[in-house]
C-alpha cells in the first residue's frame, strides 16, 4: 500500500480553551442518528463546553463552540458557594432511536469554610434528562439548562463513569450507567422504567456483570467490549496496577475466562481493539461485489483477534495481542512510551489510512505518541508535530514551491534524513529488556534533545548524556496543576520529543539489534501546549473520515490530517472503484 509510507500530518482543525483545568474523565461525546457528533468537555470547576460542526447559511463548515456552567441556576444547591469539583461525565442516548439524551455528571461538593483537602465532602451524581423535542440537533447548552435533573447522593468518591448497553433476559434493550468508586466497587445504575430515574441496582449488577462482583481495588479504568452475541470482554484496571480481563458469557452471565496482569502503577487507560480497521462497503457499490465479500471475510477473520492495550502511570504501555487465543503471552511494549511523564490516555485509530490501527497515547508531558505495529524493520520515518507547508496550494515566491525539496525546518527534517546508522540505533531503543534504562534516559524528556542531533551524534557519550539531562531539566514542561490560573511563562521548546537517539551513548556495536518483529514502533508524535488528558476519535466534520479529538488540561483540540493529502489518497482509491475492469 502506498499509503503506508505516506506521511500525514495532523494539525489543529479547531481548538477551544477551557476556563479551568479538566481531568482524565472530562470528555464525552455523542453522535446523533444522522451522524452529527458533539463533544462535551468539562472543567473541574463546573464549566463545560460543547463543540460541534455545522453548516452555516452560506454552506461553510463552522465549528460551534458553546460554553456554560453546570449548577449555574443552583437549582439543587442554592447559592451556598460550595466548592464543587467535577469528577467524571458521560453522555449517551437513552434509547436506540437516539432521541433523548442522558447526561450524567459526578462531582464532589464541600462546604467553603475549610480548605478543600481537609474537610469532608459529599459526592453526588447528577443525571440530566435532555429532551429532544426541538429535533435531533438540540443545543446541548440550552437543553441542560431546561432539563430535568436527578441527583443521586453517593457514599463513595466517584471515579470512572461510563455507560453500557445490554440486553436483559427479557430481551429488552437497556442502557445502564456504570460508575466505579473508591470503595473498591463498581456500581451499576439502571433506569427505572416507570419513573425514568436511575437507581443503583446491586442485584442486577451481580446478575449481568459478574465480573464486577469481586473487584480488587479502586477501579480507575474499565473497558467493556461486546465480541459477539454471546460474549463480552471486560477489562478492569485498578489503582494498584492490577488489570483483570474477563471473558463473560452474556447469555448465561458466567465468567468463562479470566486473565490477570500486574503493572506497577495505577492503570490510566485500557483499550480493547482489533488490529485491522473495517468499514462496510456501501450497498451501492455493486460493481465489486466479489471483492467486497472477500474483503468482508478477511476483515472478519482479522477482527477475531482482540488486542489489549494497558497504559499505567509509570510503566511503559503494553499491548497484549490476541488475548483470546494466546492469553496474555503475546506482549509488546510500546518503546519509550513512559518517557514523557505519566501516560494518561490512549486511543485506537487508523491515522494513516492503511487499514491498520495505530495506538495513540497521550501523556502528561504534553505529547501525543502514535505507535504502529511494524512487521519488519523499515527505514525510520518518525513524524513530528511540526506543521508543514502544505504542498498543494499554489506555490509563491521561492519557497514552498515543492515540499519535498524544501522540507520543514524542524525535526521532520532530521528524522526523515536519518542515515542507516542512525536507524540502527533507533532500532536498538526498542529492546524490551532495556526498559528501565530507557526510562532513565527518556525521562529527561528533553525537548531540545534533537536540536542538533547530527552534530552531536558521534560525540562522547557521557557528555552527551549530561547535556541531555541538563537540557531536560531546564526544559521540563510540567507545571503544577494548582497554578493554572496564573500564566506561567514556559520554557523554550519546539522540538517534538524524539527519542530515537536516546541510546546513542551506548557503545556502538556492543549490543546487537535484538528487536523482535513484529513490534510496535513510534510513528508520529505531536506536542501540545498542555498535558494530554483525553483522546478519542470521531467523525466530527461529517465527511466519513475520523477526526482526532484531544483533550488537554486546558482545552479541546480537534485534529485533522492535511485534507489535500487525504484527497489524493482518496482519488487513488476511487479509481479502481470507478474502473473495475482495469483493477489490478
Amino acid at each position: 500500500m502506498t499509503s503506508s509510507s505516506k506521511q500525514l500530518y495532523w494539525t489543529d482543525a479547531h481548538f477551544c480553551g477551557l476556563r479551568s483545568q479538566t481531568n482524565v474523565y472530562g470528555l464525552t461525546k455523542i453522535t446523533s442518528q444522522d451522524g452529527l457528533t458533539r463533544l462535551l468537555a468539562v472543567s473541574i470547576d463546573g464549566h463545560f463546553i460543547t463543540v460541534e460542526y455545522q453548516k452555516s447559511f452560506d454552506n461553510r463548515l463552522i465549528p460551534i463552540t458553546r460554553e456554560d456552567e453546570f449548577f449555574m441556576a443552583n437549582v439543587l444547591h442554592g447559592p451556598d458557594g460550595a466548592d464543587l469539583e467535577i469528577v467524571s461525565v458521560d453522555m449517551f442516548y437513552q434509547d436506540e432511536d437516539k432521541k433523548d439524551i442522558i447526561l450524567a455528571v459526578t462531582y464532589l461538593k464541600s462546604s467553603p469554610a475549610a480548605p478543600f483537602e481537609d474537610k469532608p465532602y459529599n459526592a453526588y451524581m447528577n443525571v440530566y434528562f435532555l429532551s429532544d423535542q426541538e429535533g435531533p440537533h438540540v443545543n446541548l447548552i440550552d437543553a441542560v439548562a431546561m432539563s430535568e435533573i436527578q441527583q443521586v447522593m453517593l457514599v463513595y468518591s466517584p471515579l470512572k463513569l461510563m455507560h453500557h448497553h445490554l440486553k436483559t433476559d427479557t430481551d429488552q434493550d437497556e442502557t445502564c450507567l456504570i460508575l466505579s468508586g473508591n470503595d473498591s466497587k463498581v456500581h451499576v445504575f439502571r433506569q427505572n422504567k416507570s419513573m425514568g430515574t436511575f437507581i443503583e441496582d446491586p442485584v442486577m449488577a451481580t446478575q449481568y456483570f459478574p465480573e464486577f462482583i469481586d473487584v480488587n481495588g479502586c477501579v480507575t479504568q474499565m473497558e467493556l467490549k461486546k465480541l459477539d452475541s454471546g460474549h463480552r470482554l471486560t477489562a478492569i484496571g485498578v489503582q494498584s496496577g492490577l488489570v483483570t480481563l474477563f471473558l463473560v458469557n452474556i447469555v448465561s452471565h458466567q465468567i468463562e475466562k479470566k486473565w490477570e496482569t500486574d503493572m506497577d502503577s495505577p492503570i490510566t487507560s485500557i483499550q480493547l481493539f482489533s488490529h485491522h480497521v473495517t468499514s462496510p462497503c456501501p450497498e451501492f457499490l455493486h460493481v465489486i461485489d466479489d471483492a467486497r465479500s472477500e474483503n468482508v471475510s478477511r476483515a472478519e477473520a482479522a477482527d477475531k483477534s482482540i488486542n489489549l492495550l494497558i497504559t499505567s502511570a509509570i510503566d511503559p504501555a503494553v499491548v497484549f495481542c490476541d488475548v483470546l487465543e494466546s492469553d496474555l503471552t503475546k506482549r509488546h511494549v510500546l518503546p519509550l512510551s513512559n518517557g514523557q511523564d505519566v501516560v494518561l490516555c490512549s486511543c485506537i485509530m487508523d491515522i494513516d489510512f492503511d487499514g491498520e490501527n495505530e495506538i495513540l497515547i497521550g501523556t502528561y508531558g504534553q505529547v501525543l505518541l502514535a505507535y504502529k505495529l511494524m512487521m519488519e524493520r523499515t527505514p525510520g520515518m518518525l513524524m513530528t508535530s511540526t506543521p508543514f507547508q502544505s504542498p498543494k496550494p499554489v506555490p509563491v515566491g521561492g519557497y514552498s514551491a515543492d515540499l519535498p525539496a524544501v522540507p520543514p525546518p524542524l525535526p521532520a527534517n532530521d528524522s526523515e534524513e536519518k542515515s542507516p546508522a542512525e536507524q540502527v540505533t533507533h532500532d536498538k531503543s526498542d529492546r524490551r529488556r532495556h526498559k528501565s534504562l530507557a526510562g532513565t534516559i527518556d525521562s529527561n524528556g528533553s525537548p531540545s534533545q534533537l536540536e542538533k542531533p547530527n552534530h552531536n551524534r558521534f560525540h562522547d557519550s557521557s557528555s552527551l548524556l549530561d547535556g541531555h539531562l541538563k537540557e531536560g531539566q531546564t526544559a521540563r514542561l510540567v507545571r503544577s496543576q494548582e497554578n493554572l490560573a496564573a500564566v506561567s511563562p514556559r520554557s523554550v521548546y519546539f522540538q517534538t520529543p524524539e527519542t530515537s537517539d536516546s541510546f546513542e551513548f551506548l557503545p556502538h556495536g556492543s549490543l546487537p539489534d535484538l528487536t523482535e518483529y513484529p513490534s510496535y514502533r513510534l510513528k508520529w508524535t505531536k506536542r501540545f501546549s498542555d498535558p494530554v488528558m483525553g483522546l478519542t476519535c470521531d467523525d466530527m466534520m461529517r465527511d466519513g473520515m475520523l477526526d482526532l479529538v484531544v483533550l488537554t488540561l486546558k482545552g479541546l483540540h480537534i485534529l485533522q490530517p492535511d485534507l489535500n493529502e487525504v484527497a489524493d489518497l482518496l482519488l487513488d482509491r476511487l479509481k479502481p472503484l470507478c474502473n473495475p475492469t482495469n483493477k489490478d
Partner: protein
Amino acid sequence: MADYLNNTIMRTVSFVERIEVEFHGNVISQAMVLEDVDNDLGNELIVGNIDGEISIFKGDSPHAWRKAAISGMLTCLAVGKIHLPKKNSLVCMTAEGWCHLFDVPSQASAQSISATEEDTDGRLLKPVFSQELPANAKVMCLADIDCDDHIEMVIGYSDRVVRAFRWHETPNSDTGQFLLLQKWQLAGQIGSITINYDRDYQPELMVSQPGATFVTLQVKPAFRHIKSDSYLDRLCGSGTNVKSSLERSESFAAVSSTGKGFGSPRGNDQKHVRGAIFSPQDQRTASLRKSEPVASKSDILSGSSISKHMEDSVPDASFSLDQLSSQIEQDLNTCGETFKMVDLYGLGKDKPAVLGPGSSELASSSFTRVCRSESFCDQMENSAPPCIAGDTGNADIAQTETESFGGDTNSAAAISSGVGMAPPRLPLSLKTSLEGLDGDLGQGPLHRSYTSDSSLRDSHENVLERSLGRINNILDGSFDDDVFKPSIIYHPLAQVQMRNKDTSTVIVGGINRGRPSQSGSGEDEINPRATYYALATLDGSLILAENDSILWSLQVDHYLFALSKLDVTGNGKEEVVCCSWNGQTYIVNHSKEIVRYQFPDSVAAFCSGYFSLQDGYNAPCFVYATFNNRIYIYPNITLPRVESTNLLKVMGRIQEGRDMLRKLNIAEDDYDSIRCLYRYCLYGQPGKR
C-alpha cells in the same frame, strides 16, 4: 479571564512550538521586526526597547545573537537596503531624531561570540552612520516609493508630519547622508505607514488616520528624475529666459503646493468646484497647460536642494552643515506650508463661499470640508512655531520665509480682496506680506550666504508673478491643474460606519492576493496584480479594502493594535494578521474566513513575518512581546488552511473527484452516500489490494 462565556463560531487553533527569549524594557511594535539583517537569507528577529537597547535573535537560541545600544528613546526599527545596494542594513530612529545605521555582518565576528571576554565587543554592534533628523519620529517605512529602485525612508512623526528621506551618497567618499525628499503635513495622528501597489503595480504611500481612514501621499514625480550633476546647468540656462522663469514660477507653485502637502482632500474638492462652476472649456485650458510645468519642476526642486549640493561638494561634510541644511530645508518647507495654508484659505475656503453657494456637490462632500478646515487650523498652528523659532541665528532665512510668506499671502489677499471677503486671520499676514513685498526682494540674505544664483530671487519674483497670474487665472476662470494637484488624497473609507471617529488606526498594504491561476507564473511576474490593504482600529474594526472599496469588514471585541500580513497557509495569498492587547490574534483570509489564536498573555508588541531557524529556510512566524520581559517567537505557525473544511468540500473542488462520483452514480449532494464511500475507501478497502 473574563466573565463572558466563550460562545463562538470562529475557528481557533493553538500554536505550541515557541522560543522564549528574555528581553527587558518596553517594546513597541514599531521596534520589532523580522528581517534578514545579516544578509544570510535567513530572517532574524530584531527588537529594540525604548531605552535604546537593541537585540538581534537568530535561530533557536534564547540569547541575543548581537546587541547594540543607542542613546535616546528608540521608536522605530527597520531593515532594508537603505544605503548599500543589495545589502540590508538596520535603521534605528529615536524620538530625539537621531537616525543610526547598522551593518550586521553575518559571520565575520562569529568566533568572538563564543569568547566570554569579548562578549561585549563581539556582540555589540556599532552604528556605521548616524545623522540627526527631525525629532519625534514615530513610525517608519522603508520602501521604494517612487519606483527608482532605491529604497526611501519614510518616517511618520508624532506631530502629524510625514517625511521621506533618501540616502544620498557623498561623491568621492564611502559615506553619505539622508536628504529630505518630501514632506507632508497630515490632519490626524499617524498610525502607520505602508506601501500598497495599485493596478499598474505602482507604489502608493499610505498613511493611516484616525477613524479607519487613511491618506495616500503623492510622491513628487520630479524626484524620479533628479540627477545631481545637471541641476545647475539647467538652472542657469533657464534663468534668463522670461518664459522659462514663468514656467518656473508655476512649477514652484506646484512644488510648494504639491510638494509640501496639505492636510486635506482639496484635490477632490477642487474638482468638484471646478466641475460645478467652470465650463468644460476651462478644463480644457487646464489640461493644456498641464504639460508645461513638468519639465521645469525638476529645476526648481534642484534649486531648493541647492544647499545640499553645496555641501556635497565639500568632502568632509560635517554635522553642523547637515543640520544647517536640513534646517534650511525645513524652513523652506515651512514656507511651503505657509503658502499652502494661504492657498488653502484663499482658494479652498473662500471660493466655495463665493462661487459655490448653490453647489450641491460641495455640500454632499461635507466630510472633506470638515477635514479641510481642521487641517487648516492644524497648519496654522504647525507652521507658526517654526517661523518664530525659526532660528535666531538664521534671521535671513526667517526673513526669506516672511518674504515668501508675504508673497503668497499677497496673492491670497488679492484673491480675498478680489472676491470681497477677508478671511479672519488674514490682515496680519497681509501686513507681513506687504512688508515683505515692500522690502527688496532681490536682496534676500540667503543669496549671500549661499551665493548660488538668482534662483531664489527669481522665485520670489515668481511668487509675485504667480500670484498675479493666479489672480488672472481666477479672473479668467481657469486654473493650472498642476498647481492644485493634491499631494495628499484623503480616503474616508469606513469612516461613516465607525463608532468612534478618533480611534487610532493602523494600516498595512501590499497584501498579496495570490496568483490568478497556477499556470503562467512567468506571465504573472510581468503583470503583478494590485494588492489589497487592510486597516485595523483600536476599537476592534478590521477592514480589508482594495481601491477604496471595502472587501470585508469585521468587528471584534478586542483592542486591535498591531496589524500585519503574512502568508500563513503558503498558498501565495497573504492573510491579514491582527493582534489585540489581550493576545487574541486573528488570521483572516481574503474571503473573510477567520482563524484565531489566543496568546496566553497580554501583548506589548506583536509582529509577524518570516523567521529562520536554520539554513535560511524562512517559515511564517509570530512574535509576541509581553510585559514581563519575555518575547515569544512562534517560529513555524504554518496552517494547512484558514477555513474549517472537510473532505467533502475538498473533494468537491477536485474535478477528478466529481467525475468519479458521477461514474459511481452518486449525486454530488448525496452526502450520506459520499460519506459512506469515503469511509469505505479510507478504512475499509486497503487490505484487499
